[in-house]
């Protein structure tokens, strides 16, 4: 860990702050922190409970030079933010970390109780001192990650849901989502946790003038809200999974993003957050109708 701290201190010398993690989060796992001084950086950690995508803070910190600790999936969000000219490459220092595949901490706590002690030394994963199978609790996104040694190895219930969803008929999907949206409370955690949702206080889902969406909190409004959210992320979603992780009522929102990302890949041969120079397909306007032309 001392190497990690040294790196953060180096970057701090040329930035206003570094976004990273400390071990002092709720429930005894890592939580986001801002390091402004070398002393503060002494508390920096990186482990498999560093689940958050810290890129979400970058648009809020525009105008300042910021260092950021990033997993491979988080880095994609940073690249996409640069590609969209939302943040300035010159004002960001990226500290890449070797990601051990992060844990679905919620799934662990759902089984062992909130705050159950999670210890991971990189090889053995223990919950309340008892060894558990890592494959069951690795986040579903990590199973599809080309950087991860757990690629395709996850045995989580969530990954099974992704598989089941693919084989559902349109009617079954409609039924499925009606059920899921019924418990949405419109807390907007999905939006606020998303690094690409940076419209902030002028979001179409809450503006009152014009009043684009209804103000009610019910399955119908939730469906509308999610369709808007998903569409606004077409070709921009970097599949970090934060919308779903943030959802306090367990709506598997990444099923929507996964479907759309697949469609974008097929139609435009595009994956968001790979190339900072790339033109995102839906941000490309071309009167000749050639989305890939240089006109």
């Amino acid at each position, binding site marked *: 860990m001392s190497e990690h701290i040294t790196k953060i201190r180096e970057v701090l010398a040329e930035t206003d702050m570094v976004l990273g993690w400390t071990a002092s989060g*709720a429930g005894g796992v890592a*939580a986001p*922190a801002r390091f402004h001084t070398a002393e503060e950086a002494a508390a920096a950690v990186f482990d498999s409970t560093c689940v958050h995508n810290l890129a979400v803070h970058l648009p809020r910190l525009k105008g300042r030079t910021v260092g950021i600790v990033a997993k491979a999936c988080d880095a994609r969000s940073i690249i996409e933010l640069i590609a969209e000219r939302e943040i300035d490459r010159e004002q960001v220092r990226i500290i890449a970390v070797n990601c051990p595949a992060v844990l679905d901490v919620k799934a662990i706590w759902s089984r062992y109780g909130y705050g159950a002690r999670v210890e991971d030394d990189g090889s053995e994963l223990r919950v309340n001192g008892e060894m558990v199978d890592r494959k069951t609790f690795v986040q579903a996104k990590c199973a599809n990650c080309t950087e991860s040694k757990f690629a395709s190895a996850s045995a989580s219930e969530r990954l099974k849901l992704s598989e089941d969803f693919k084989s559902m008929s349109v009617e079954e999907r409609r039924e499925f989502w009606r059920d899921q949206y019924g*418990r949405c409370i419109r807390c*907007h*955690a999905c939006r606020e946790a998303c690094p690409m949702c940076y419209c902030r206080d002028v979001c179409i889902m809450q503006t009152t003038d014009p009043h684009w969406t209804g103000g009610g909190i019910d399955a119908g409004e939730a469906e509308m809200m999610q369709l808007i959210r998903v569409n606004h992320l077409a070709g921009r979603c970097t599949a970090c999974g934060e919308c779903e992780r943030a959802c306090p009522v367990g709506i*598997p929102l990444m099923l929507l993003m996964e479907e759309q990302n697949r469609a974008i890949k097929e139609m435009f041969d595009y994956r968001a957050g790979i190339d900072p120079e790339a033109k995102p397909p839906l941000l490309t306007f071309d009167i000749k109708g050639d989305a890939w032309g240089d006109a």
Partner: protein
Amino acid sequence: MRFISGENIPELLESFSAGGSVVWAPRELTGSGGTVLFERWQTGDPIDLEHFSSLSAKDVVLPRTEKLFGYTYAFGGGGLGTSGLGGPSVGGLGGALGGAPGEKLVIEPAPPEPPTVLFGARACDAKALNVLDALFNNPEGSGYKDPQYQSRRDALTVITLACTTCDEACFCSSFGSGNAEKAGSDIILYPADGGLLAEAVTKAGEALLAGPLFEETQMSPPPLAETTRIEGLESLEKKLPGIFDDMDFWQRISERCISCGFCTYGCPTCYCFNIHDEMKGDREGERQRTWDACMFALYTQETSGHNPRPTLAHRYRNRINHKFSYYPENQGMILCTGCGRCIRGCPAGLDIRDVLSEALKESSKEQ
């Protein structure tokens, strides 16, 4: 002490239902990764009395969306008329809705509240109802009497399950009698061999326990769980104003926050609401009251464009001050029961207990 066997619990709920009551009970939802919520119970629905719910039970008195009244513009008749609402506000209301001359505005009042049973609430949920009563149903004290709230509250029976286990986020012991709190409940249930022990708190609860599904028992209740206790939270009422202007402090403690509204929507005592009209076409609509959250920027956005709480730190400061200073000052109670839902559900790993401890420390430093 009374006793009900495990297999008789669905029958008990069924008897409420058959008697015309709406029943709310906690249930694990399918395909939700183990999320437990209070839902309207229907015959045959499973209930989950083991896990702690992700959201509070406040829907029973403060629905996430409620219709205050419906309205229709009708042609004909002379001038703007109203029906269904009494009092001097009617003229102003008609004006606000913008009826043109020659139109008649017809108001359709919200239907009366059905009797409701909340089953399986925890002490922190039940106490929260008491805390909310101090504002919404308190003409002598706060001066407010919210008719919708009051009619729901009057029609509500609260059956609470005492906590014999707790988790790391629970901190109800920091407030009054903690999980031994009986305020807000009609009946307290305790886990027991083969069923539940039941103790009446109110006359209404006593009448229910006299029913045939309950029997007399000599068993005594099990010991309750010991939750985290933070000392000195009452002192924040007087201490928080001292650090109100210390924006560096509020900035620092809210750094982690991403400004979603979960902590308020999951909270049993957060009651802020928005009122808006939802039109269906251009002739009719309904006036709705929905949950709103002080963590949203638009919450205090004024028509002029000015926002008195322009940053996340300002909004977070308000949330803490409202709960631990303004509400105690105005209503005589802390607006928190230590249920821990804001801690368990925070997507950014922010723990309000850390914030409160920091605030206590900071305010002693400055005084």
